[in-house]
């Protein structure tokens, strides 16, 4: 189906893109405003970026947010990977399916429910709200996504690879580190990545379990947005937009790497078959 550039369907698509991106660029545009409002542009200036970098409280919050995201995604990746291996090993279909349904509960639950139920849970345990409660919650809601990213890779794996390794005298640990791990690494990386972005983006769950002393970026932006416009937030959003672009770039790099590896493997196998 050939289509002219000015086709009305294309115009519709362009409109959707415009609507999707306009607010983001609106934010970034006003971060360079010399004035202090998001409505009248009175000249170009870096002053709000200077303010942002001088704001030690904000920088501390950014670092805390990154720390939480890194730690939670790392731990969630380890637990999720082990979980995927455990689920993979289950032979009974009903058990596998019910564990998978349990796994998905936190994926489909509204944030408010997760936040509220975790708040009750932490209070019940007597855990002080703050860094640790936020970290635990982020680990908890990131685990299922890691499982969902790793499990398909495990299922894709040819089981005769494991059998061959065992027949050739590999120990269980060797099978795990030399055969299974290399194969599921792409799934693990994607899972880690998703967990990281989940943690960075989360607002509702953190808002419930954060208590008074500890804040993440989303909670801070919420607090500031309730007070009205502050162009420092705009400057921050511009930087975060750049950071998301970098993350997406990284994600695509991983995907490309996986694909090319897959292709290379296929080529190699093809070459062997020809021989």
């Amino acid at each position: 189906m050939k289509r002219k550039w000015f086709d009305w369907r294309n115009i519709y698509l362009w409109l959707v893109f415009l609507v999707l991106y306009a607010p983001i660029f609106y934010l970034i545009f006003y971060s360079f405003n010399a004035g202090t409002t998001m409505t009248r542009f009175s000249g170009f200036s870096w002053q709000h970026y200077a303010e942002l970098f001088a704001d030690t409280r904000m920088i501390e919050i950014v670092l805390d947010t990154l720390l939480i995201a890194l730690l939670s995604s790392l731990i969630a990746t380890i637990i999720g990977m082990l979980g995927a291996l455990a689920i993979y090993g289950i032979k009974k279909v009903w058990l596998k399916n019910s564990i998978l349904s349990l796994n998905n509960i936190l994926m489909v639950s509204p944030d408010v429910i997760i936040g509220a139920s975790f708040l009750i849970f932490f209070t019940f345990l007597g855990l002080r709200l703050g860094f640790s409660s936020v970290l635990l919650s982020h680990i908890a809601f990131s685990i299922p996504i890691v499982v969902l990213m790793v499990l398909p890779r495990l299922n894709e794996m040819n089981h005769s690879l494991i059998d061959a390794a065992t027949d050739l005298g590999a120990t269980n640990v060797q099978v795990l580190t030399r055969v299974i791990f290399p194969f599921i690494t792409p799934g693990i990386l994607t899972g880690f990545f998703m967990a990281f972005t989940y943690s960075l983006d989360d607002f509702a769950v953190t808002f419930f379990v954060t208590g008074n002393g500890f804040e993440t970026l989303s909670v801070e932006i919420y607090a500031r947005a309730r007070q009205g416009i502050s162009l420092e937030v705009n400057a921050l959003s511009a930087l975060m937009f750049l950071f998301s672009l970098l993350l997406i770039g990284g994600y695509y790099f991983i995907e490309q790497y996986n694909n090319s590896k897959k292709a290379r493997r296929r080529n190699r196998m093809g070459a062997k078959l020809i021989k």
Partner: protein
Amino acid sequence: MKKYNTFYSVPYVLWLLLFVIAPLVLIVYQSFFNINGQLTLSNYREYFGSGTYLRMTFNSIWYAFIITAVTLLISYPTAYWLSQTRHKQLWLLLIILPTWINLLLKAYAFIGIFSQAGAANHFFEFIGIGPQQILFTKGSFILVAAYIEIPFMILPIFNAIDELNPSLVNASRDLGATNWQTFSKVIFPLTLDGVKAGVQAVFIPSLSLFMLTRLIGGNKVITLGTAIEEHFLVTQNWGMGSTIGVVLIVAMVVIMFATGERKKKGGQRR
């Protein structure tokens, strides 16, 4: 590998017990306590007895319905035409990109755009309507919620359309169906699963969005999520908050069954 399986599963099973099952049990348990910590059914009695909570629930469902409908109306054509473009994966990536921007920042952008002297009012002045109060209205809440949810609706629909076998569409055209017939009798029914997945991905969060009702809706709209947040963090009435939470969980399960399970049965019938 048996021995190792139990070893792998320890942390994962602990997670399942502590962070999936325990919180769910606790929220149900908490819903039977009133604000003074007495075991009672009064929360449920109040919820279903007084009109306030039922009206709030109905309103919340109604708004979620409108948001889902608006999102679907915008997303279906987008997904459909997107799947016909040449570099469709690239375009899809561009649709998904805004979801990586923090939700709060997007809401914050609309505070600027919809404000008294913001871009939207400039536009209204330009076309001669004159400035309006946009921020803190129900309309602005629906618009911003739809804006945020659009990519989550486009994605599953796009995947469904992308998987559609083009020869079915060609066959219907060859057999003399009009464009509209091809769409309504072939394309739409075959992509219904994508639509259902999209509805599921949009409807449930729309019931529970609470920061938008505060930042954009100016508390004119109270969703189930807002009510839960209010009870937990403002009035500290955890029992009532949990009761609303239980209602939200039930609503979620109903929606999941309505949009998910039928897939298998319908597949058999077909």
